[in-house]
């Protein structure tokens, strides 16, 4: 059981407040949706969480361990996984190899064993690939693409591979940055079931998404960002009734 806390997080890019006073929690087993208009600071919040940028105010903690101040790879080793909005796979590696790299955090095979042909290394490799195939199957990458270089996979498969690679880490926290972009309704429905099943494995999931039906159907709670500030949070039903949210999305005239 773990949970991610944002406490009064602010970030200031040379006078521009990309985020200010953002506080909310993502608990394990829950899916929290993070929504807001373009430029509201959603991806910036993911970047703060994963150590790409340091917050200039407030803090992010995972259980009692502070994340802010740590570097990217250190935060990853604590079990914080992410996917990228603008896909960042390892382009010349196959789908399976991408997932194997995703499992770096949980690998325990002796590192120098390969030089002396230790059987444990070979066994670990077989297990890693086995697990990779299971994850690729779970996220729905077609079997005939498993040995394909990531760069030449179809767009939809690349998005799924991003999720499989993140799952390979056995994450405590999973940050999904627009995983449904470019998916058709049937694919989105599959994604919704997948995200729920991930949360059921006691992962704390944060979902950044523009697809409102997906957010409303998947999330236990929703947080709404606008111009870097949290303007509402609550259950999907509460948030969708909130006048501030309607105003942010549709403009003030529509809200009246």
């Amino acid at each position, binding site marked *: 059981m773990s949970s991610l806390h944002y406490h009064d997080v602010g970030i200031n890019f040379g006078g521009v407040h990309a985020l200010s006073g953002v506080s909310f929690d993502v608990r394990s087993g829950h899916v929290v949706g993070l929504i807001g208009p373009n430029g509201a600071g959603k991806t910036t919040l993911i970047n703060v969480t*994963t150590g*790409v940028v340091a917050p200039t105010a407030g803090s992010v903690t995972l259980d009692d361990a502070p994340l802010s101040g740590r*570097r*990217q*790879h250190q935060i*990853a*080793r604590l079990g914080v*996984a*992410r996917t*990228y909005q603008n896909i*960042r*796979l*390892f*382009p*010349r*590696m*196959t789908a399976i190899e991408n997932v*194997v*790299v*995703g499992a*770096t*955090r949980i*690998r325990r*095979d002796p*590192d*120098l*064993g*390969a*030089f002396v042909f230790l059987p444990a*290394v070979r066994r670990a*490799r077989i297990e890693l690939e086995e697990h990779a195939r299971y994850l690729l199957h779970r996220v729905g990458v*077609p079997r*005939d*693409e498993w*040995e*394909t*270089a990531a760069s*030449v*996979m*179809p767009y939809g498969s690349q998005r799924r591979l991003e999720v499989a*690679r993140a799952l390979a*880490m056995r994450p405590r926290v999973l940050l999904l940055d627009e995983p449904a972009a470019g998916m058709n309704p049937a694919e989105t429905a599959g994604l919704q079931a997948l995200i729920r099943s991930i949360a059921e494995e006691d992962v704390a999931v944060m979902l950044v998404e523009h697809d409102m039906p997906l957010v409303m159907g998947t999330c236990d709670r929703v947080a709404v960002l606008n111009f870097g500030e949290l303007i509402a949070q609550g259950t999907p039903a509460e948030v969708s009734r909130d006048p501030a949210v309607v105003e942010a999305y549709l403009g003030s005239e529509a809200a009246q």
Partner: protein
Amino acid sequence: MEWLVHFYALHSKLIDQIGINAIFALSLSLTLQAGHLALANAAFGGIAAYVASLLSLSRGWPLSVTTLIGAAAAAAVGAVIGLPVTRLRGVFLAIATIGFGEIALIVENNLSITGGAEGLSQIPNETTTWKIYLVLAILAFFFWRLRRTRAGWAIAAVREDEYAAASFGIDPARVKFWTFVGSAAIAGIAGSLYAHENFFISPGDWGFSRMIDILVYCVIGGAASPWGAMLGAAIISLLPEVFRFLHDYRDIVNGIVLLAVVIFAPQGIAGLWSRDQRGRKAAAAAEGQSR
């Protein structure tokens, strides 16, 4: 058998050069595998060559000992330079390392212990063909197995996308630093073998033109592949000999071969094979989609 002995007697120098060049190529391939372009391998070879030669000349220690100390010295200098320099990216790292190479040359040209511009001579000729190829075999084994270690996976991931690698728990700074130091050590081994092969060394042996030669071995062979690097070193070292009958025109042929590889096989010679493989996989995937 007699033919073989005769062939070796005629070409032993070339065979040795190919081996040493292949070790230099392997040294550069280590940093290229991690996706960064550091161009100080000739300088590291020079540092180790001077250290090893001075130890041979003053103490009379055997080649194995002087080579190890020389490589350790190159690695130590590599570690000192590497701390600040491996934080740089792309062309900035290339320029910084070229700058370091020039500094090393100036120091070697002006110190009295290195013999200044005249260099060192009467270095014991202890390098033999079997020693070179034993070292090459050990290094080839190292590179072959490295890909199967966790470190090897980390190196490949950093080459592909260092930000994505970091978000899976791999420290790109650490990968870059240690590949830089390892690369310096391997270049040092090559430098020491070169010194004990050639009787004398001078600063000119470790300049920018040598660095470019090493880079060309790797580009021709396939930048990120140790096998390609060795193959590239062998081909480029052989070219001038194969086209010797063209006399003054042979450099033109060298140039044409280089251009042809860069244009028709941008992934290098090793890439011809793997591109074909990936291509087939891509085609199979496309076929699977259309079904």
